[in-house]
């Protein structure tokens, strides 16, 4: 276990040596990552497939493409992001140099999750390197193939002391969290999120917690139901429902419930064909534990579609539940699986009240042609992010900060927001030693005139 202390100690010594501060060094590391993405694409895609039964095109567009995009942006923008930022001066400082200088924080810890196992360590890593930090990465041990590939590949391309990859499970992570870091970015669930924050508190370490929750999806009667259901179906069953921003459950008027079900069924056929199990584009549940957990949520529910499962391959068919009660088990925890409950509500007021009576979600979705209604839902609710008339797509727009609020997390990243998250914004005021006359105003002895 002292191994963790050594790894972090080495990263800190390497950071203190100053070699990762220069922009040239950071660029060089980012370009090396780019090279890795090109040369080792096959190995990475194969690992993701082994972990999640994810098809290559899917793994490429949902994980690798996002990483490449952030890499290209960081390499392009780093000089402008890292430059000192002059600010407005006042009368007393009119002749001084006043600016905010983005500086590295030091040694950063990134803990990844298993559902997008490559993306969720790599995307933060890019921002952390760009900001000039040393980075310790801990990919999720549950997606073991991707963890192994990250642990094998990164040292071949990046500075080994500055950017070590640590593998292991709970004991190793616990030991890692005892060490002192200058920022921790954790992706996972709220329960562990609290543990991470408590560990960070011991060292006063700032944190970014990308957690989860139940992301509600309200379908208004006034909308193009076919389009809405197609988009929802895509987002819900992507990665077999194992997406932190998947629409977790639907709220809609009871009169359109059966139409919603029909539309989703039609889309499922379009996307995955007659036999979902045979579609190369449909993933599997990550492991037996989650497989059993998700099946357990179906107990006592009205299954309008799906429900088939095969333990040997961790296959659960795309499933829809209707007339679900708010008090049922499937409404207690984040589903993180291909099960879509529909809860009838009589109005948008009821939907808003329902959403607000629960923990703030990571994402909130509304489908409606009525702009006023959409504006109202945004204004009267709170969530990490929000999309009207689609799902998930805000994730791919790096100009939007991606993160949660309340139980769904704190802090944000993606694109430039990653750079900001992993930087310390140091305020700098540089005055002249002359011009003392102006200062006399503030020195004692005081007088009303001076005031």
């Amino acid at each position, binding site marked *: 276990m002292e191994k963790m202390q050594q790894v972090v100690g080495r990263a800190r010594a390497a950071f203190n040596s100053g070699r990762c501060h220069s922009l040239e060094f950071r660029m060089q590391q980012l370009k090396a990552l780019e090279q890795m993405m090109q040369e080792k694409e096959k190995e990475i895609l194969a690992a993701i497939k082994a972990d999640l039964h994810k098809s290559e095109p899917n793994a490429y567009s949902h994980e690798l493409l996002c990483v490449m995009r952030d890499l290209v942006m960081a390499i392009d923008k780093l000089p402008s992001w890292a430059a000192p930022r002059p600010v407005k001066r*006042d009368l007393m400082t009119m002749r001084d140099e*006043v600016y905010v200088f983005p500086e590295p924080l030091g040694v950063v810890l990134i803990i990844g999750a298993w559902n997008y196992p490559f993306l969720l360590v790599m995307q933060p890593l890019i921002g952390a390197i760009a900001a000039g930090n040393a980075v310790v990465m801990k990919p999720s041990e549950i997606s073991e193939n991707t963890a192994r590939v990250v642990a094998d590949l990164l040292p071949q391309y990046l500075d080994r002391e500055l950017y070590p990859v640590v593998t292991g499970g709970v004991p190793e992570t616990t030991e890692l969290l005892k060490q002192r870091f*200058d920022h921790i970015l954790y992706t996972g669930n709220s329960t562990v999120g*609290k543990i991470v924050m408590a560990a960070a508190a011991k060292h006063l*370490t700032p944190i970014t917690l990308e957690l989860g929750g139940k992301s509600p999806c309200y379908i208004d009667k006034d*909308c193009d139901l076919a*389009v809405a259901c197609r988009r929802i179906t895509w987002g819900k069953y992507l990665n077999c429902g194992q997406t932190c921003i998947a629409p977790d459950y639907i709220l809609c008027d009871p009169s359109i419930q059966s139409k919603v079900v029909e539309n989703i069924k039609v889309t499922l056929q*379009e996307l995955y064909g007659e036999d979902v199990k045979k579609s190369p584009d449909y993933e599997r549940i990550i492991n037996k534990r989650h497989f059993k957990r998700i099946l357990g949520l179906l107990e006592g529910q009205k299954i309008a579609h799906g429900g088939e499962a095969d333990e040997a391959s961790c296959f659960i068919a795309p499933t829809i539940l209707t007339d679900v009660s708010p008090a049922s088990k499937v409404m207690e925890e984040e589903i993180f699986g291909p099960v879509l409950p529909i809860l009838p509500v009589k109005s948008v007021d009821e939907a808003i009240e329902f959403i607000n009576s629960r923990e703030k979600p990571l994402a909130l979705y509304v489908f409606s042609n009525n702009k006023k209604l959409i504006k109202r839902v945004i204004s009267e609710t*709170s969530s990490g992010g929000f999309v009207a008339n689609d799902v998930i797509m805000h994730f791919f727009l790096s100009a939007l900060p991606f993160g949660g609020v309340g139980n769904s997390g704190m802090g944000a990243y993606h694109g430039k927001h990653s750079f900001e998250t992993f930087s310390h914004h140091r305020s700098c005021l540089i005055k002249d*030693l002359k011009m003392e006359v102006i200062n006399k105003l503030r020195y004692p002895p005081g007088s009303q005139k001076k005031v």
Partner: protein
Amino acid sequence: NPYMGLVSRLRAVWLSGKTRPMEYRMAQLEALGCFLDEKKQDILEATALDMGKPHFEAQFSEIILCKNELHETLNNLSHWMKDKYVDKNLVTRLDSAFIRKDPYGVVLIIAPWNYPIHLFLVPLIGAIAAGNCVVIKPSETTKNTERLVAEALPNYLDKDCFAVVTAGMQETTRLLENKFDYIFFTGGSFVGRIIMTAAAKHLTPVTLELGGKNPCYVSDTCDVQNVARRVAWGRFFNAGQTCIAPDYVLCSAEMQEKLLPALHKAITDFYGPNPRESPDFGRIVGDKQFQHLQTLLRSGRVVIGGQTDEEERYIAPTVLADVLPSDPIMQEEIFGPILPIVIVANMDKAIDFINSHERPLVVYAFSSDDKVVNQVLERTSSGGFCGNDTLMHVTLTSLPFGGIGNSGLGTYHGKFTFDAFTHCRGCLHRSMGREALNALRYPPYSQQKLGLVQAAAEVKRKGSCTLL
């Protein structure tokens, strides 16, 4: 829990949306302005009673600086509140993408005793501006100010949405058991850890404005008298009880010899030959703090000052020379009117010394040579940096104020206070039409689709055609 009722009541009002409209927030902020105007005398008297705060200082820090922040906020709130539209990619080009500034909900502000009005009021300005409900916990150490705030503030602010809680350590612990949506704490690192640990139980985000020992490097090339004045002002303001005060000086033996008489002159210019009689020099806030400071005087040798009076809790503006890094006064934040000078051979040694200690709230460097100032800036890390002066960087509302590492996390002042209490919510508003464009993302997948997806979503590198 004695505060559960209060927090639930505030949360219910929060959910009703009362604090959201801009007009409401502006009205509450204007009311805060009235509080500062109408209660100015009471504030000056209370802070004088609590810690002998000189009227001039109190006007500057508790009234003028607060009004600056208030005006900055009132002038810009409508702009800060607006949705921020962002750049879109090819796929979302025809959509509406923006960042919505959402309040967190029910927030808690815990203030310390050294600037007892300023350090709750400036965060409060941002919390109200951002649309939150607020629980304010002023310091129990400055009893007169605490009473003033508890009695007078509710007459200015909407009692439905803003509450003042008076509490000692035990009660504050119970207060922290409740769930808040944001906690803003100013105080010491030890308590900062306790606050963050309590916040972790509810996943509450925090801003911690803590402290530390702020080093002040004085190079051999400088206008000694100006340096002495600026350093003395920063050190002895509020009798040294300032989180951003220069805590200790690092300089060469030669510079120490020049600084000592210059510091003596500055102190005499400011406070006269007997600072105890000056209306412009403060007192120590409490007996406990006073007694502790007395023990720290036994470090190095007293060259200026050193006199104390227990009854008045007076400690003269004091300068200690030849202090060693191992001396008691160098082991903790001083928070009193004592300035130790530690000899270092040169700038490199000064930088090494600074870097071998916890990162402070601010690093100060004095030199007429720009290069020296910039070297110290570049080779150290701290919350903020001020070259050739002390304290002044926090008077600019355009600079974010906060610490790093042990000196804190998060920032505020000006718009940064509004930002601290705001959740930036990424919003995307798409149209129901143009569904054909989405076809690219739906299974069944194919290499051809992938090529198009790649092309549509890519960020091209400027000046190159390929990703190599």
